[in-house]
């Protein structure tokens, strides 16, 4: 199965809707251990993305992802702007010129996104950041695609791995971001960036399941 440019745009807009629905949750999570703006920031960023995608004039999925990245960089105020922005801009490069993407492209997209986030945030797994959701999700994706599993199973495992990562962030102290100033006090709270990453992967799973049916 592959996604066309239009389906990719639809998927990106669905991500925007999910983040809007979870705006309060993300802001509350960030309020507990950070500066309380993650929900507002992600919603602002993806609202701007949706607007841009409404009148985008290209079939090139690389161009679409690059537009998403650049829009996030200029419209999100917190760390998630440069982080997700870099992720989308790096991912854009591996699908440049493509009007259709498949699971193998998605593996490359995720690989670049995770690398971009590591480069930008200088975090490693265990720091209580979005990487704790994204890295296991990527590893699961890579493995499952190698084994040629059905797409729905793959994407379900990927979002489940991210959710496990989210739950893991609850048990550890933050070493990066504003929460790191709280040290041990950050234990017992989920990392908001890990949660937004999970929500994005969950939306990918649900949307592609619907497209497929």
């Amino acid at each position, binding site marked *: 199965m592959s996604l066309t440019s239009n389906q990719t745009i639809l998927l990106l807009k669905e991500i925007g809707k999910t983040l809007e629905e979870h705006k309060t949750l993300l802001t509350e999570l960030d309020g507990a251990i950070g*500066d309380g*703006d993650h929900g*507002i*920031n992600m919603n*602002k960023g993806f609202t701007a993305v949706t607007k841009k995608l409404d009148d985008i004039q290209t079939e090139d999925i690389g161009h679409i992802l690059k537009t998403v990245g650049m829009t996030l*960089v*200029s*419209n*999100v*105020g*917190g*760390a998630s*702007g*440069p*982080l997700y*922005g*870099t992720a989308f801009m790096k991912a854009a490069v591996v699908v440049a010129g493509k009007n259709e993407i498949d699971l193998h492209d998605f593996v490359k997209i995720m690989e670049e996104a995770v690398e971009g986030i590591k480069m*930008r*945030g*200088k975090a490693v797994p265990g720091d209580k950041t979005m990487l704790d959701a994204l890295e296991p999700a990527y590893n699961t994706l890579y493995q499952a695609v190698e084994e040629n599993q059905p797409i729905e199973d793959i994407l379900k495992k990927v979002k489940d791995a991210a959710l496990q990562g989210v739950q893991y962030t609850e048990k550890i102290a933050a070493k990066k*971001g*504003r929460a790191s100033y709280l040290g041990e006090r950050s234990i017992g709270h989920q990392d908001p960036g890990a949660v937004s990453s999970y929500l994005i992967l969950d939306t990918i799973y649900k949307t592609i399941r619907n497209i497929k049916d």
Partner: protein
Amino acid sequence: MVGLVIVSHCIEIAQGIRKLASQMTPEPVPIAIAAGTNDGRLGTNAEQVTRAINEVYSSEGVIILFDLGSALMSTELAVECLPEEQQKNVVILDAAIVEGAITAVVEISLNKNLKEIKDVLKDLSINKMN
């Protein structure tokens, strides 16, 4: 003259640092600030850092000081997006932002070059780039 850019989450912090640092010299020194989000909340964004760099840029160079967290990420992103011949003249330093700005302004007003100012500010590093 080398230019100075202050990147902060908070516009009042950036304005205050500029005010404090400007006091150190009778001759005005090029200082630009990038602070807060486009809609006036706390935060940083790369677009504003790019604008601030361009405001004070010359081939003599630009020094950028930042407060914390995403200020560095937005700054690095902005610098990566500059034309290559400009990138090598722009340095991000992790000096304590208030002390760093005051020291930078003094050094700039003494017409020190980029390398000399960088060396002086090294002593004020608080290791926030790792």
